[in-house]
């Protein structure tokens, strides 16, 4: 079987449970060779578990995963040869310098003599670790450590790189440096599977994004696709002269308008329409209703907002499904049937009507929206 048989990464109906917790719940996706894929999800969404399974460090409860067509469970040794893994945090050894650290891993990867020396030198040059060669690794800054960790994962020149939160905890300068290195690797044609919380950075680097939530893939596509997906909504930034509270009071009373967040002079509003005429109508209404608007401009939809909207939509769908199931079940006969009952705490509310439906959707206060 050739190494290039099959996709760079292929995951089919992957499951991983820890007791009753389903960390990964039927994940399926495919990454072609040379692609850079961002893996996005909240903490505990199942990103690291999926990545660890791909890196042969954990086992799926069910399903299949392969790297370059080789099954990760059956042939971990072969998979490891074509895989570079960079964890979100890496431990440091005491009494070991940068060059000794790389030398140890080069030995462990099977490089001998001159070849080993050459690999270590090449990686140190690439990650700009030369000036740090004799520094003890437990004295390195976080950024330097991440560069070292990336260098280590490149020692055997892997085809596929799996990077778990490589930019977490880095200062802006270190983040830019790391991004630069990843860009070079992408240009070299390596397949890079990278997770991060910083979506804007991922959007710049990645060919497409995989969104995972509660162990399930909820979106696979480019950043543009996701931001475009919310084309029926518009976000505008509004500044007022005087008391900014007026804006939130106004938004609370207005249909199809929702306050997303408040600022010193105003805030951001979400309008449930992408139609310029309707957006203009909102501004007109604000002015006619006496709001002292000094600035009103349309914002490009941010990836973070798109992701949060996507999650909200999924939660609403889940709630609707639960409500539908509950409604389909006949109520159990209870003594005193027919008497008015108090709604239970935590009972699921029906989903709000969609924009454009009448009557107008129920209103939320800014504080609710923040929550």
């Amino acid at each position, binding site marked *: *079987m050739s190494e290039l048989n099959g996709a760079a990464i292929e995951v089919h109906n992957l499951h991983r449970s820890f007791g009753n917790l389903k960390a990964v719940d039927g994940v399926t996706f495919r990454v072609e060779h040379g692609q850079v894929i961002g893996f996005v999800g909240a903490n505990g969404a199942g990103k690291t578990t999926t990545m660890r399974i791909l890196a042969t460090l954990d086992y799926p409860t069910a399903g299949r995963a392969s790297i370059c067509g080789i099954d990760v*469970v059956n*042939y971990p*040794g072969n998979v*490891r040869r074509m895989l570079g893994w960079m*964890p979100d945090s890496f*431990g*440091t050894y005491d009494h070991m310098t940068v060059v000794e650290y790389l030398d140890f891993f080069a030995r462990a990867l099977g490089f001998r003599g001159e070849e080993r020396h050459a690999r270590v030198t090449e990686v140190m040059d690439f990650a700009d670790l030369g000036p740090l060669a004799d520094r003890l690794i437990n004295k390195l800054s976080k950024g330097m450590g991440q560069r070292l960790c990336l260098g280590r994962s490149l020692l055997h020149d892997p085809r596929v790189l799996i990077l778990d939160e490589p930019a977490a905890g880095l200062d802006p300068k270190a983040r830019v440096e790391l991004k630069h290195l990843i860009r070079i690797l992408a240009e070299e044609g390596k397949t890079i599977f990278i997770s991060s919380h910083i979506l804007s950075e991922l959007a710049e680097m990645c060919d497409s994004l995989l969104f995972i939530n509660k162990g399930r893939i909820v979106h696979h596509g480019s950043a543009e696709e996701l931001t475009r997906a919310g084309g029926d909504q518009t976000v505008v930034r509004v500044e007022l002269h005087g008391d900014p509270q007026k804006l939130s009071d106004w938004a609370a009373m207005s249909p199809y308008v929702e306050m997303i967040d408040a600022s010193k002079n105003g805030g951001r509003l979400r309008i449930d329409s992408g139609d310029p005429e309707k957006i203009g109508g909102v501004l007109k209404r604000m002015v006619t209703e006496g709001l002292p608007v000094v600035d009103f401009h349309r914002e490009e939809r941010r990836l973070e907002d798109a992701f949060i909207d996507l999650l909200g939509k999924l939660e609403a769908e889940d709630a609707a499904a639960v409500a539908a199931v509950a409604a389909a079940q006949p109520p159990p006969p209870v003594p005193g049937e027919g008497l008015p009952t108090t709604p239970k705490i935590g009972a699921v509310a029906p989903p709000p009507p969609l924009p454009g439906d009448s009557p107008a959707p129920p209103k939320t206060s800014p504080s609710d929206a923040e929550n």
Partner: protein
Amino acid sequence: MLVKELRQGMRTKMFTAVFITVQAVMGFFMLLGFTAGGASALFWLTLYAVLIIFQPLRGFSALSNEIKLQTMDLIQLTRLTAWRIALGKYTAIVAQSALFTASVLPYAVMRYYFGGIDVQEDLVWLFLFFATSCLLTAATVCFSAFPNLLVRGAVLIGLIFAAGAITVFLGDDYFDRDRIPFEGEPYAWLGYVGIFALVAYACYFLLDMGASQIAPEAENHASRKRAISFIAAGVPLALGALTDVAPEPLVIIGAIIAGVACFDALAEKPVFVPSVYAPFVRRGFLGRLAGRLLYPGWPFGIWYSLLMAAMAVAAIIAVDIKHHGGSLDDEVAAVLAASFGASSSLRLAIRLSFSAAWRISSGWDDPHPCGVLLFLTLLGIMMGTTRADEVALLGLPVPLASFPALLDYHFSGSREIMTAVSLGFSVLYFAVIAVSAITTYSRVRGIEASLGEMQRGQSDTGTGSGSDPLESEASDAAA
């Protein structure tokens, strides 16, 4: 691994401090003339503290530190197998122990010049200390891979007792009488060879057990361990049965090795990764047959245990016939019944003791085999030492425990009835675990069938097995 561990280990302040302290203490004793007062005993006490206590204790953090520092993942992703990781860690500590031992050799030679010292005797003691240190270090390195603190704590307590027992044994039997083990016995050299072989096997067994804790499921440790244990138990059993050199001690050593190997085999978790079975399937019918004994997991461990029990029983009968004229009679039947029962009851006891709340993440299939083993051992000791028939009868449902009771010459009841009841329980236990293993057997047969089909498909299409990733995976494991 060894280079890295040596680099790190010898740079620690602790190592430097202990090394300098040992040299200072030895220098001080040299000034005292070594023979003055208790200086000779203090010489050995210093070595004892370093080799039997300090160095083995360093093994406790060997693998757990890598796990704690999250560096184990990174090492596992290299070409180092779990076995090489464990061996590297172990060898680094043993190399440092060797350095300590070598560093006191000049003082040992000086003791000779001060007079009253037998150099040969000193060297034998150094060898025994070093061998004990190697064994204890293997145990600590092995259990450092167990994430559960309870298991590691229990082992630590066990090791403290073991070190205490060694102290008492060495002190009472040898130091006080100023003699060395096997002194004046006809096959003294064989005793030392035996110690060396036993320590080597025990170290291998322990390290492999530790390695299997950190290895991926596709890395098959069980088959090799069982094959080596079969040889390690078979050689002393065969020597005991066929030669006149210390038959009873050899058979006892062989039986102990067999017992430990059976316990390990019966506590293993079944594995359903096809690449584990592929090397057996590739060898056709004989490979699959061997797999019935060597496949990982307790369901196949049952057959392996029965084979080991049969081998031990055969050796006991041979020794009995050869050296005692076959006088054991009913004891032999009892041994047969108990051995058969032991192999099945142990598994059942492990199975029955399952409880999620008590589950110890030890990598063994079941929660507290250590506790079960301890219970059976204590029961066995009680049966073997008590003279009360009622207590002996209590042991009947636990054939492993009834083993010493059945052989106990103080027992006044009917051995025939006890043997029959013991055999009955054994058959019952065996039936229960055999039934509970059926699902595993059928699942493994399915894997074998699909691998066989894949193999036939490859040979039909003429694709060489060299391009099969399985090949390089298997050859890696062999390497």
